[in-house]
């Protein structure tokens, strides 16, 4: 039976509708919770978050449903009980992650852990649940630490993720697609089919020239155009921003060269950031307000849009254990 883990329980992939494959309800580096600078009341959190999700739900209505994949890893402010209430009250499917955004966001307890323990952690969160929330993770987050070079802990996490993915069928998505060779080697050694991996942030402004797209595609991996909206045209763009047209053209190159099935797209926006200012005005709804009109204007038809945001995303998220 085909299923996808959402925070409110398993659903059929046919129910997901429009999928934003890499987003955040709220992200913060571990330790930011100690800094009162970023604190907000629960009233503020809901006030900042609920309207964005409700609009996302409305925008996605033509697709039947809206699905928000939260890419916030363990130790980064992931809050399942909160996600459950948001999902229940807005109607947006929320899919939570297990795993880590990168080795540099894994706290000492996990930094000391073996590959086996980390794999067991991920499997438990996918099959039993996260903490006491009862909610199960639907995807595994891994990533490259700051510095554009995979560190030993990053590699340990990738290997554990590969094992957990094979055991549970949950897909993997990465924070950053730079220094991809060690990642490809690990997935290969662990025998994980590469179409279960989405190499994220391949489209950001600081990664250009550092992503071996050919190697990823040759092995059947997927490329994440998932920082849409972090545009240098914004009044105060983040350091990973990129010119809007450049990013769009980058994606169009793939779509116009028969590589539709190799890409997934998203906005990586925070509804209410936890330990950084966030980027004002940037929300998941950029996908509807800017990206879809841009794609239409570039001659990309609804069939292709549907393949990227509905069909391929659903296929990717479906639990596919390799037994």
């Amino acid at each position, binding site marked *: 039976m085909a299923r996808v883990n959402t925070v409110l329980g398993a659903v059929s992939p046919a129910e997901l509708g429009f999928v934003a494959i890499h987003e955040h309800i709220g992200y913060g*580096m*571990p330790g930011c919770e100690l800094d*009162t600078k970023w604190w907000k009341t629960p009233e503020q959190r809901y006030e900042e978050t609920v309207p964005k999700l409700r609009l996302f739900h409305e925008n996605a209505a033509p697709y039947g449903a809206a699905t928000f994949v939260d890419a916030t890893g*363990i130790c980064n402010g992931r809050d399942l009980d909160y996600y459950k209430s948001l999902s229940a009250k807005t109607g947006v499917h929320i899919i939570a992650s297990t795993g880590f955004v990168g080795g540099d966001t894994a706290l*000492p307890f996990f930094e000391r852990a073996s590959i086996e323990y980390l794999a067991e952690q991920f499997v438990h969160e996918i099959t*039993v649940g996260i*903490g006491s929330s009862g909610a199960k993770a639907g995807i595994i987050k891994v990533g490259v630490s700051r510095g554009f070079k995979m560190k030993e802990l990053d590699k340990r996490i990738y290997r554990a993720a590969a094992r957990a993915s094979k055991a549970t069928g949950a897909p993997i998505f990465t924070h950053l697609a730079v220094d991809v060779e060690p990642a490809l080697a690990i997935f290969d050694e662990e025998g994980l089919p590469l179409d279960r991996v989405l190499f994220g942030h391949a489209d950001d402004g600081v990664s250009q020239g550092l992503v071996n797209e050919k190697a990823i595609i040759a092995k059947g991996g997927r490329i994440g155009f998932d920082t849409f909206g972090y545009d240098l045209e914004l009044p105060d763009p983040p*350091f990973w921003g990129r010119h809007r047209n450049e990013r769009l053209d980058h994606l169009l190159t793939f779509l116009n060269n028969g590589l539709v099935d190799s890409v997934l797209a998203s906005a990586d926006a925070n509804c209410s950031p936890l330990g950084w200012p966030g980027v004002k005005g940037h929300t998941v709804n950029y996908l509807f307000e800017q990206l879809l009109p841009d794609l239409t204007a570039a001659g990309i038809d609804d069939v292709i849009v549907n393949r990227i945001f509905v069909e391929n995303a659903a296929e990717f998220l479906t639990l596919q254990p390799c037994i």
Partner: protein
Amino acid sequence: MALVNTVLGPVDADDLGVTLVREALVNVVPGAQYGYDIRIDRAEVFEAVVAKLTDFKANGGGTIVDANGMFQGRDLALYEALSRAAGVHIVASTGQGPEAMLGGYFLTPQTNPPTPWPAERFAEMFSREVTDGMVVPRLERRSAAGLVATAVTVEGMTPTDESLVRGAARTGLATGVAVLIRCGFDALASLDIALSEGIPADRVVVADLDRNDAVAAGWPAEVARRGAWVSIDHAGSTDPQYVSDAERVALIMFLVNDGQADRVLISSSATGASFGEPGNDMAFSYVLTDFVPQLRAAGLSEATVEQILKTNPANLLSVRK
């Protein structure tokens, strides 16, 4: 009247009684709270720790300092309830360290480049935990921190360790609470860095000085001669990294005979409850029931016992205006 910041508010230093300055009520390796196989049952933790505190009190104890800082399990609401239930004063600490125990927020912030936090930012964060109250993450501030505790990496001081030491020293200077530094590769170098910030030596504790390498290097006597506090804080420990109780007694007798009785602090680094790494089974009462008798047998006078267990910690913990 000299006041000490406890989790239930300021207390007259004369009321502290026998005080252990380096213990841990609840120890959580950062991140262990998310471990799939770790269950922190607050009722169970309370019951276990309150029993240890009650036993400490029954054996003549008065005050426990949780010197674990702000990110290794500090649970202020629990500590307040424990203090009320056991009738033991509890002093909680701000501070963090060494570098390896920090969250990525402080080490690889979302800036380009990801420059680790400098001393002044740590100083501001720690100082506000004294002046405005200690944080319950993303919720509220509660009582004032009574100590700022940090640590230096045993293999060698990292640049962030240095920022932590400087930030802690500035906190002590600005707020009047004492500074505790768990020593690393070179206790004297770390102490000198703290002192270079202008904090008086008698506001700084160097901890872990009963580690084998610390004793072998002669740091305890040197720390005392510089006017800082010598924390002999593993009474009863069987950890092979630390000297035995017999050697610990000899070290204390040496310091006392060197005229440094007013620089010595004794505790046991007991963990009331521990998650993510094994705790020790040390009772908070061990210093009173087992260690002090060894000191007496070695010839330590009652007056000196009283000074080390009561007067010295009271002086240390009194917030200096």
